[in-house]
């Protein structure tokens, strides 16, 4: 499949902190999950790809446009929807007014067309009924949907979502996943998340980052396959395991290099993710 976003050698330092280390990736239409622990560089990568901050080194293109130039950056931004990690609001605005404000920033100059578009995206995120309510009176889940509506204004071809499901209760999270799945139809979505369930349910590709670098890029099935033969159950936590935790059945689930005679278990995406992170730690320590 032809890539819509392509990056090579992206590096970025904040003082002496290496936030991005030679990151290269290719994104295709559909939802790509970006997994990684805190401080892995996920938000920095999203901010670079969203053209909020320039990289120190490296280059990337979005839908054929190079944001390295002023004109190219503007073209990328015309095709971009961005939901930051902590989206800010003007709390006195209504949901409609806030999305309208973002639509103005997105250069929808004609008032009628703009209002029609605002109504469309609010309907898309199922907020048409509360469009006149002030944002400060909306629940956290609703605010997050307002921010998603703002990101969807102008039907962007590239949607960048930075941990949109954080802080939502399970029901809201499910609802948000449905919205993201819908948004991923026909456009390229990069979804940063801590939740492996988000990736398992939504994503056709997954990227794992640690210490500013890409440690894995492939399909969720390929990430799961990383743990094939490296997951086992035991009645006590295995001291030789790289990670182990008690499951709901009372037994321990271990990942790592199983001892002889261990009872193998079916690997999951989470197991594969943990092993990739562990390999990354080992590499850094070496």
């Amino acid at each position, binding site marked *: 499949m032809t890539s819509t976003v392509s990056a090579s050698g992206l590096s970025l330092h*904040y003082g002496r902190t290496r936030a991005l280390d030679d990151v290269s990736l290719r994104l295709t239409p559909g939802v790509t999950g970006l997994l990684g622990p805190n401080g892995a560089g996920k938000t920095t990568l999203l901010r670079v790809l969203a053209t909020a901050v320039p990289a120190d080194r490296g280059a990337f293109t979005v839908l054929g446009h190079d944001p390295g130039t002023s004109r190219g950056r503007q073209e990328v931004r015309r095709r971009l929807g961005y939901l930051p990690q902590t989206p800010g609001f003007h709390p006195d605005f209504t949901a*409609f007014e806030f999305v309208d404000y973002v639509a103005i920033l997105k250069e929808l*100059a004609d008032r009628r067309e703009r209002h029609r578009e605002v109504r469309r995206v609010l309907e898309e995120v199922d907020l048409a009924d509360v469009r006149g309510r002030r944002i400060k009176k909306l629940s956290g889940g609703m605010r997050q949907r307002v921010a998603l509506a*703002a990101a969807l204004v102008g039907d962007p071809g590239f949607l960048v979502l930075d941990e949109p499901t954080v802080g939502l209760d399970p029901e809201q999270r499910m609802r948000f996943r449905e919205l993201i799945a819908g948004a991923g139809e026909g456009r390229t979505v990069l979804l940063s998340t801590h939740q492996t369930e988000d990736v398992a349910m939504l994503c056709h590709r997954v990227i794992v980052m640690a210490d500013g670098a890409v440690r894995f890029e492939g399909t969720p099935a390929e990430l799961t396959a990383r743990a094939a033969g490296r997951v086992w159950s035991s009645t006590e936590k295995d001291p030789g395991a790289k990670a182990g935790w008690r499951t709901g059945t009372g037994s321990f689930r271990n990942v790592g290099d199983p001892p002889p005679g261990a009872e193998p278990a079916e690997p999951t995406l989470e197991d594969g993710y943990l092993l990739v992170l562990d390999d990354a730690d080992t590499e850094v320590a070496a």
Partner: protein
Amino acid sequence: MRIEDSRHRDAWHVDEDDLRAYARGELAAPALWSADAHLTACAACRGTLSEVSDAAALAAGWERLDAELDAPRPGRFERLLMRCGASDGTARLLAATPVLRRSWFGALAAVLLVTFLVAVSAGAAGRPTLFLACAPLLPLVSVALAYGPALDPTYEMAVVSPMHGFRLLMIRTSAVLVVALAVGGLASLALPGFGPAALAWLLPGLALTVTGLALTPRLGPVLAPSLLVGAWSAVLLAADLARASADGPLAPFTAAGQGVSGLVAAVGAGLLFLFRDRFDVSVRGTV
């Protein structure tokens, strides 16, 4: 009957030419807004509209009206800005900066306070020195308060929008400057005893504001104006030490000082324009 009733109730009706333009989608604001509001309540004009428009154009007109009815009425502040000539988009951009309003009110309060202080203290010195020293900081601080990631909750969204960051900055800065300069100017007029000398803060104020903006991409939206506040204080202290006589004006408020301020403002404006693209990405290290 209902048509006649509504004609009796409303003395004013939309002009037929306007209705034709409305049906074609060519009626411009504010006549368009009047027509929108009136058509929802007047069956007679809706009837006339259907007579003067073809079906397809009429359907498009209803769709537009429907979308418009869905849109909430702009707030009081936005309506005020639109009455002052701002487009609805610009009014929304300005209304989306609550700190802008706070900086306006802050500027007003600061000038009133300083004017009061001058009125009670200037008599002995014979010159509005305190006012002149403080007033240039007014636009600098007001503009600083209206911009930046720490004060604009939607800064990150605004930065990645296609609207150039410099354009947004200039819209907000112009709005702040107009108010800050007008308020400062009115305060100067409130000191008629000092004559035109009371306006000597204008050029230093512009120089400080423009220089502050030009330094912002490099130093950040807090450090840049803070340094300039310090620099301005140092200049005033040095000018006070170098003053020939206790009654003479401080150097920045002499003709030569005004020339230097004008020059600094012009150079700062040039640099600001030259480095305008730096406002198009986030200030490093923020968010």
